[in-house]
């Protein structure tokens, strides 16, 4: 059964590219455009991995990450944070909140795929 990925991102073009890339790798892809929708998606069916943008409407990426980590039932969900904020402090914050990895925009598509695979494999 293919691994499932939830893309949480509000920029339609970035969503499109991530969707394309992940589908091409054979993953099952769902999309959420804001923080609330993201939580709702996780609640309905927890994905294996979330590509989570930080700057999204309603509840930001940090908030979503924290919420998911607070629920032991979702401990298996991997999270890679995406952000256009390049500051170290943001990266540290993401890792501290329980993200598995952190990718700065604009990213190399190949590296992103490598990271996704690593995280999914490393987590079992």
């Amino acid at each position, binding site marked *: 059964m293919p691994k499932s990925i939830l893309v949480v991102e509000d*920029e*339609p073009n970035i969503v*499109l590219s991530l969707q394309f890339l992940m589908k091409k790798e054979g993953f099952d892809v769902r999309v959420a455009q804001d923080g609330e929708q993201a939580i709702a998606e996780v609640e309905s069916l927890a994905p294996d991995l979330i590509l989570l943008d930080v700057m999204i409407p309603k509840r930001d990426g940090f908030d979503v990450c924290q919420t998911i980590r607070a629920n032991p039932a979702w401990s298996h969900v991997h999270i890679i944070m995406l952000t256009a904020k390049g500051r170290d402090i943001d990266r540290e914050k993401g890792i501290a909140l329980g993200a598995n990895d952190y990718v*700065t925009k604009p990213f190399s598509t190949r590296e992103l795929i490598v990271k996704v695979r690593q995280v999914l494999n490393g987590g079992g």
Partner: protein
Amino acid sequence: MTDGPAAMPGWLIVTASFGYLTLLFAIAYYGDRRAERGRSLISNPTIYALSIAVYCTAWTFYGSVGRAANTGLGFLPIYLGPTLAFALGWLVLRKILRISKTHRITTIADFISSRYGKSHLLGGLVSIIAVIGIMPYISLQLKAVSTSFTVLVSYPETEPLLATDVPLLGDTALWVAALMALFAILFGTRHIDASEHHEGMVVAIAFESLVKLLAFGSVGVFVTFGLFNGFGDIFARAEQLPDLAPLLSFEAAGADWLPLTVLAMFVVFCLPRQFHVTIVENVKESHLNKAIWQFPLYLLLINLFVLPVALGGLLLFPEGSVDADTFVLALPLAHEQPALALFAFIGGLSAATGMVIVETVALTTMVCNDLIMPLLLKFAWLQLAERRDLSGLLLGIRRVAIVFIMLIGYLYFRLIGETYALVSIGLMSFAAAAQFGPAMLAAIYWRSATRRGAIAGISAGFVMWTYTLLLPSFAQSGWLPLSFVTDGPFGFALLQPQALLGMTGLSPVPHALFWSLIANFGALVAVSLADTPSTIERIQATLFVEANRHRGAAAARLGTLPGRVPVSKLIAMSERFLGRERTGEVLGEYARNANVDVSKMPFATGELVQYVERRLSGAIGSASARVMIASTVQGAGVSLDQIMQILDETSQVLEYSRQLEQKSKQLENVTTELKAANEQLREVDRLKDDLMSTVTHELRTPLTSIRSFSEILHDSPDLDINERQHFLSIIIRESERLTRLINQVLDLTKIETGKMKWQMSDVDLADVIEHSLTSLSQLFEEKRITIERRIQPGVPTVRADRDQMIQLVINLLSNAQKFVPAGWGRIVVSYQQTGDGVRVSVADNGPGIPEAEQTAIFEKFHQVRAGNTGNPGGSGLGLAICRGIVEHLGGRIWVESTPGEGSTFIFTVPFAMAETASDTIATGSADGEATAARPSVA
């Protein structure tokens, strides 16, 4: 020798006079226009020095020669005094200047009243004395104009006509007075804040100083080198005549020399008009540095030819055939030089008008702020309280007062002026003004001088002046029996007004000066020593006497009223006197300087209260301002006594070890400055960091799409053609978005840092709207959006940058099209003229903007991300740029919206501001002077 010349036709003189006055109006108008555009003419030390030369009146012009003809060098003290005062007393002047600037002093009455505890009584007293004392001086100027006119018309009939023989409406003096009043109203009452500069008036006065110098100099050169062979020739010929020889020594000047010099030293800063031009109209303290030699130089130049002209007149005219006061006109006329005589007449006219205009403006401000305002506040408090905006009323009062003062001056001239020689009237006014001298000096050098002391001193001096000078002048005019002067009242010889206690040997003015100043100083010192000053007096005394120490922020902290003042009350009160717009400007200025948001403060800081009080002082005088401010205070905080205690303690410590204090203060200053600089840097750093991070974020977003799709296209050669096309179009769109964003960031930075180059021209906004609609028409068609125009025809153009206006309108339109519902979008563009500008609005039928967001959307990078609309795809800079453009033009932009019912973006551009928003390249570097150049309300 005198049969040749004929009288000059009256119409020629009248035409020349009115032509000259018209020129004066034009100069003043030009000066004001320049000031409005921020290119001040008076920010120039030489113009400042020339304006101080308003000291030389018609009295100098005609009377100096008359006095020299009688007393030789006796005319000099009147000019020696100011020269000494400027050369030796510039520290005194500088101190007065600094104090007046800090406290926004408007007149000498305001200065004295403010120093002595902001006393209404004292301010009123000084105003009344000034009006009574100076009125004869104003009449004197009118008399000079009238007499010189008569001389020109009737020469060689030198017997001056009595003014009362002339029919009222045919009297030149009346028309000249009326024109002067008009000038004073137009250029002297433009702002409600009397401590602001009257640039046009000052420029005109400086011009007049040049004219009178040239005119007098021309006559002097003509007499000295045309009629005689130079200075040596005149003096040599005069020395041979027994009558004239004494005039060349100090003999004729006699014992009056010293007292008159002292008198003139006092009046050069006590005459209301001198105080006005030297202190109130001063733009920069540094201008004083040049004026201290330029003004004495002017006096030297204008006096160079006084003695030669006087001696020349005495040599050429048979004994007593021509009044020496008219030599300046009679000499050219007698030698068939009518043009020169006419020029001399214009010179005298300019000397007279300059004096009358400035004196009237100064007196009017006094009468309005220190007499009428306090009375209105006291007696008509209830009615006043109901009126919201009083700034119009204040200006109205000043204008009426100008007409009133001019009228009294004219009546005085018709009734009494004819019986006295020019010099006596002038000196009488001088002696009256000198009564302010002791209180002024004590104000800045003697801390223990009190309010009661000052009142006693000025009153005693004024009583003595009245008794020894005014009453005798009434006696000579026949209003009192002459025996009053010759034998003393009721025959008491010791009380003879001009030989008090048997003091003879001094002429009337020095005699009066001696007694009045003794009484004045004596009462001031005696009463002050016996008196206990109130707290407010002690605070003001400290602030004035130690002005050099308590400057700036320190002074602002002291003298603050105790208790709390709600900002809303403060604003409401200020609006009543300064008007709404001016209050907005004042608060804005304060907010910028102090870097605070006034609207968020519930209670005003002491500094803000002080700031508003000073501005108010400029409009209604310091004493009234204090009363008004006090009315807004709630509760009690620090008491005045506590403030005084702090002040006293610091003063004591300072006096114990001044050196130590100075050093530590320097150190402290440096430390504070460093700290502030550091703090500022950190703040700038933080803001920059925030902005950088936001900008980076906004740049990275399109870049992410571009990079991802490029790599996808690169790594997936087998993509089908449609998908490839789709991805490529995304790359193109995102590249465009990136370019747009970069341009907008640059634009906004330029606007914010004032580096934007504005191509200002007269722009028809209807045309701009049409242009913008056309360039977006295809987009509207694609999205099937209905456009409705509500354009008012014939609206005048505004000064603006056309391209920027197009960008502004396009921004608003494309914003609107983004949010309208697909398929039935509708945008309404309206354009109309409002009272003082134009108004453009763009309404859409989109989802609307929640109230909480309505201000924030104009901030940089703020986007409304309503739940289901997702990212609207803008940069978040468009509206910030719109706001930058509109605010540069002095307009306002805002949004009105009810969620669910669409939004309307509205902006205004004013006509007035658009005119003064000069076509300069750089803006935004607003410093103090730029703000002063703004057009004032009212």
